[in-house]
């Protein structure tokens, strides 16, 4: 199996364990196993060999037995492998004939597994208790409706998820079109007239790019979203020709070998380390120490060296205090540090970082740049993809700017010209529309909000500024009722919202979370907006105007998942624009966006403000707050420490 497929199955089994756990609270759901839907999905998406399907079934069985309160663990170890193999057999038979193949294979696999479980259980029951055959048979018959209802739910789950998932997970092959040149490949890293087109894409992501990176160079790559920065990172590290589907013209060579001459990514990994932007997807183990240690252990170093190097990595990445923490108990910034530490443990001559510091604060970023600079002094090459490059000047030795798949600048680092026209603003008002009065909120281990009072006015942009854990997100969740205060009250236009439900409050207060992907789920932009309209009972309204307002007019029928990150953020904004709430809360509205996209989002928000709406912007970026907000409310450790502006 490919590593990607192992990861995919693992994630689905985790989802299955949760679904099973939740379903247990339905009385009688003792054999109604929703895990089956998820390992069936895994098999449908991966289409493994029969032996592998059996293995997937065994792992699912172990998870059911150990983690999900099985009433008879031994039964799961037999029934889940049978379910998995049946699912694969049925899916192979029907997949080319109908789009309902996921539903059909799950529909057959669920009773196959369920009845196996019942038979095993009844068999044991019959031989170990003084029950009669009649009782056991009656017991088994009574379980049939439960198995059938589980089958129904599983079929719905499998079919609803399988269709869009197949398009997300499309399996592709790389086609290499150019023969290697006769000249020996360069002994550093070089791209030679490289053009790369992703499968199903019309224009190349990289267009005739040539480039050579020498030992000891610190290269920073910038450019707008969609310019090909990430593809360039994948090309430089050599993984492009191994792990991504598409057409390659031209050559990539690393350390005396062409990239496609490396057997696989594992062989490449002796030369190249990569850190990606999604830190969560780079943590595989359940503790920080395990993550870094395993990377060291697989290098076959003497044991004493492993320990020494581990301590050194803890020190340089400031992760020593996190050793026993699990990934889900780390903040975004800490996750990025750990992912970097794990990549550093390989000590590769080339390290490629793709937006790998986006969630670190300014000081931490500077620390990382210092660390990388120190590595270049020892002969390592560093390639850093960043859309905010100003902070890297002084560290990087070379800057490459990309646009539309081409290199448009390659030379000494220089600051970006970010001259966007100032946005016009109408005069602010002092009319209070939303007010938090002495609110206190306690989480089990921490006082998240400590007697916080603040008012928001009609027609203003108020920025709530603070570091991670300062309580800013907890505060805004109180403003739309997601959290209720332990003490104090929230007043919406003078009225306490304590007795009002979230859907009711949502008609007046809109909240857009940091990552647009936490809300987008429909298959066209238009439908995504209609979902919100329907919720507030205005399904007759048209989504066109709000799409146009954010500059997505031509993309009404497009799948949100095929939009760029910046466009998805705009779509999220269009959703609250359409539903027309007077108060709109944006959590980190510009994270992951380039300066131009950030400006466009802020332009729309300022327009909304000028129409008399109240915009609350939660951010940890003082520059953004200073540039666009009427008032800045600073928070620290659950308290408001300062309110600036608005006098």
């Amino acid at each position, binding site marked *: *199996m490919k*590593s990607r*497929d*192992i*990861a*995919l199955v*693992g*994630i689905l*089994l*985790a*989802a299955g*364990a*949760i679904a099973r*756990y*939740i379903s247990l609270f339905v009385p*009688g759901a*003792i054999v109604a196993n929703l895990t089956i839907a998820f390992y069936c999905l895994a098999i449908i*998406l991966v289409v493994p060999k029969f032996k592998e399907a059996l293995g997937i079934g065994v*792992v699912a069985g172990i998870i059911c037995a150990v*983690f999900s*309160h099985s*009433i*008879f*663990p*031994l039964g799961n170890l037999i029934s889940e492998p049978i379910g998995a193999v049946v699912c694969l057999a049925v899916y192979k038979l029907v997949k080319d004939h109908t789009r309902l193949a996921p539903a059909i294979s799950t529909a057959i696999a669920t009773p196959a597994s369920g009845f196996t479980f019942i038979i095993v259980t009844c068999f044991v029951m019959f031989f*170990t*208790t003084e029950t*009669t055959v009649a*009782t056991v048979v009656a*017991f088994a018959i009574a379980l049939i409706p439960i198995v059938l209802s589980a089958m129904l*739910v599983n079929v*719905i789950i499998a079919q609803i*998820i399988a269709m869009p*998932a197949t398009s997300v*997970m499309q399996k592709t092959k790389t086609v290499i079109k150019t023969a290697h040149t006769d000249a020996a490949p360069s002994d550093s890293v070089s791209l030679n007239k490289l053009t790369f087109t992703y499968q199903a894409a019309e224009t190349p992501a990289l267009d005739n790019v040539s480039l050579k990176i020498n030992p000891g160079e610190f290269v920073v790559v910038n450019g707008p979203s969609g310019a090909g920065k990430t593809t360039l990172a994948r090309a430089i590290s050599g993984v492009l020709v191994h792990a991504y589907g598409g057409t390659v013209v031209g050559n990539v060579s690393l350390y005396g070998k062409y990239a496609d001459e490396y057997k696989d*990514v594992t062989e*490449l*990994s002796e030369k*190249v380390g*990569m850190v990606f932007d999604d830190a969560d*997807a*780079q943590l*595989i183990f*359940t*503790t920080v120490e395990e993550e870094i240690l395993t*990377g060291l252990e*697989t*290098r076959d170093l003497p044991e004493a060296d492993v320990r020494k190097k581990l301590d050194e990595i803890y020190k340089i990445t400031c992760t020593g205090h996190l050793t026993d923490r699990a*990934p*889900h108990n780390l903040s975004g910034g800490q996750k990025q540090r750990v992912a970097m530490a794990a990549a550093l443990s390989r000590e590769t001559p080339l390290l490629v970082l793709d937006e790998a510091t986006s969630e670190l604060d300014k000081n931490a970023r500077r620390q990382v740049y210092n660390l990388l600079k120190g590595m270049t002094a020892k002969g390592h090459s560093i390639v850093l993809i960043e859309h905010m490059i100003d902070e890297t000047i002084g560290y990087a030795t070379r800057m490459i700017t990309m646009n539309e798949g081409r290199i448009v600048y390659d030379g000494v680092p220089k600051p970006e010209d970010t001259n966007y026209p100032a946005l016009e603003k109408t005069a602010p008002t002092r009319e209070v529309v939303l007010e938090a009065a002495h609110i206190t909120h306690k989480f*089990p281990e921490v006082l998240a909000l400590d007697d916080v009072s603040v008012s928001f006015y009609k027609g203003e942009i108020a920025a709530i500024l603070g570091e991670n854990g300062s309580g800013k997100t907890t505060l805004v969740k109180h403003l*739309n009722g*997601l959290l209720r205060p332990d003490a104090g009250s929230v007043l919406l236009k003078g009225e306490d919202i304590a007795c009002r439900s*979230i*859907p009711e409050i*949502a008609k007046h207060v809109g909240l857009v*979370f940091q990552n647009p*992907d936490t*809300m*987008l789920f429909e298959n066209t932009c238009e439908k995504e907006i209609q979902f919100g309209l329907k919720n507030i009972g205005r399904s007759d309204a048209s989504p066109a105007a709000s799409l146009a307002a954010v500059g997505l007019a031509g993309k009404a029928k497009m799948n949100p998942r095929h939009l760029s990150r910046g466009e998805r953020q705009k779509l999220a904004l269009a959703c609250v624009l359409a539903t027309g709430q007077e108060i709109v809360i944006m959590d980190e509205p510009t994270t992951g966006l380039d300066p131009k996209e950030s400006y466009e989002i802020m332009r729309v928000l300022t327009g909304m403000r000028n129409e008399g709406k109240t915009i609350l912007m939660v951010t940890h970026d003082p520059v953004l707050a200073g540039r666009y907000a009427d008032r800045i409310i600073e928070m620290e450790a659950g308290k408001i420490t300062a309110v600036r502006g608005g006098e």
Partner: protein
Amino acid sequence: MSEMEDIMQYIPGNRFVHRLSPMTKIFFAVGMMFAAIFTSNPLLLGGMVIFVLAFAAIGGAFKPLIRQVPLLIILGLALVILTVLTSASGDVLFTLLPNGMFPVTTGAIMFAVQMALRFAVLIFSFQLLVISTQPRDLVNALYTLRIPGDYALMFLIAIRFIPTLQREGVRINEAQLSRGYFPGGGIIGKLKQLGPVMLPLMLNSLAKADTLGLTIDMRGYRKASEHRRKLVYHAADLVTILVVAAILAGIVYVTFIL
């Protein structure tokens, strides 16, 4: 919802049960499972429930087990209803409906009690294994049991992502609530959440598989199983194994030989 407890997670601790080798704890869970299967005597089963709870109490893991009791009560009631509806043996105690329909018999009640006690032994002992064992030790035990490295890795990723998915699910649910979405409660409400909550949750997570796969390859984790750490056994491991073996042997003797 946002303060929902982590499900099925290791709870850090340093008492007796935590320090046992993972293999010992697996033997404990499997041994108790067989002991519970081999007997249907409610007194013996009740004794085993008390033994598992006492064992957990010595190890400082009593509270999380007790939290499973509501679930057991639901299971037990479901079993009583099932057996009452399907089996009639022994004396009739009373009938559910006044016209003599659905007689509740001693046999049915006995059967339900036996099954509920048996499930209590199984669920408590496996729960004890999960909450007192670091996932990495569990994976190490899988290596020791000769489970191929790829499948151990799959298991590891599943455990790793259970709490992450749980948190992400809460976040997505909050995001949709903020858009005025109200699915209602109960089973129908859960089913209605499939689209707006489950779909983005699964698609976002599946989109991570590419990066996860690359990370596994780039850090050489496929070879991790060749570097499994040696499991260490102490005197307490021996004592535990002997006690469980004695219980198992005792049950076998009582059931099959006496």
